[in-house]
């Protein structure tokens, strides 16, 4: 689908001095900013598609299947910090190390 190229658009070709950050705020340049109704706007196929996609991705059958698949891979046992999250009120276990905030993001593969 050609419209999808928009989401992949920022590639390592050319680009200005802000190219790294430009990618992070590209939707603002395409979808915000001053619009003058009597002027013409060039066709910018892509952004609208990109925004619609964002909604589809969190709500479609494909997203549900992906969530189920990722959940199926998670090993919820054998890790005390995570079991600690089961405590009422979201209490944190005492053995949680200082770096636990990032540790929570560590992937555990089963087997």
């Amino acid at each position, binding site marked *: 689908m050609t419209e999808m190229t928009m989401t992949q658009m920022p590639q390592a070709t050319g680009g200005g001095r802000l190219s790294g950050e430009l990618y992070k705020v590209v939707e603002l340049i395409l979808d915000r900013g*001053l619009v003058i109704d009597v002027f013409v706007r060039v066709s910018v196929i892509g952004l609208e598609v990109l925004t619609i996609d964002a909604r589809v991705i969190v709500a479609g*059958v494909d997203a549900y*299947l992906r*969530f*189920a698949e990722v*959940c199926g891979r998670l090993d919820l046992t054998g890790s005390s910090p995570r079991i600690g999250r089961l405590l009422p009120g979201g209490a944190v276990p005492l053995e949680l190390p200082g770096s636990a905030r990032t*540790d929570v993001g560590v992937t555990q593969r089963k087997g």
Partner: protein
Amino acid sequence: MSNYVYCVSRASHPLPLEGAVGVGEHAPALRLVREQDLVAVVSAAPAHLRPKRRDLAKHDAVVGQVYAAGTVLPMRFGMIAPDDEAVRTELRSGARRYDELLSRIDGHFELNVKGVHAEEALLRDVLLQNDELRVRNQALRAAGGGSHQDKVAFGEQVAAAVAERSAREAGQVIARLQPHAAQVRRGPPVDGCFVNVSFLVASGARPDFDGALSRLRRELPGYASVGVYGPLPPYSFVGNEVEM
């Protein structure tokens, strides 16, 4: 010849354009179109223009260069005026509105905040906090994944839990940062972000904003992280709409 329009500013603006070129393959020179107290930065419009990275970067570079020297109203990418006279007519008829907008954003910049979730850590937390989902997940695992229908139904429940957290954490981001901004505007939804929101921040308020951001980062769950982009020209605060 039609004009590609980059931004509108006050005629008193120094408008440094050295070194910058316009959008399009032929890198046209930048020009100023003046009318009374206002000025527009334009270049000859290319025959074919699509939102390629190169042209977006040029648009942003021109706006950024002018913005670095004073207040500007950045145009949305891709605005074309049929000729100089059309630009002058617009500056004349919209003079009051543009003056108001320029006054409102004087001394301010835009900070864009995007929040993302580390997905596996988020889902782990969702399961650990929700007995029903955790039991269903275990049952599906025991059944070798379950049927297509079971997976869709389970995934939909997980998605609802994720959406609830996304909404909650987006609310947290806005609530903590809003007190340090003159205006707030949600950005368009962006794939992979649970929140995309821009703040119009006064130059002097940046330390307070950053302080609130540090507290916010400590307060959010470990699977959520927020990035801040800017200072940017106030793209989100020059539209016709006033939101939030």
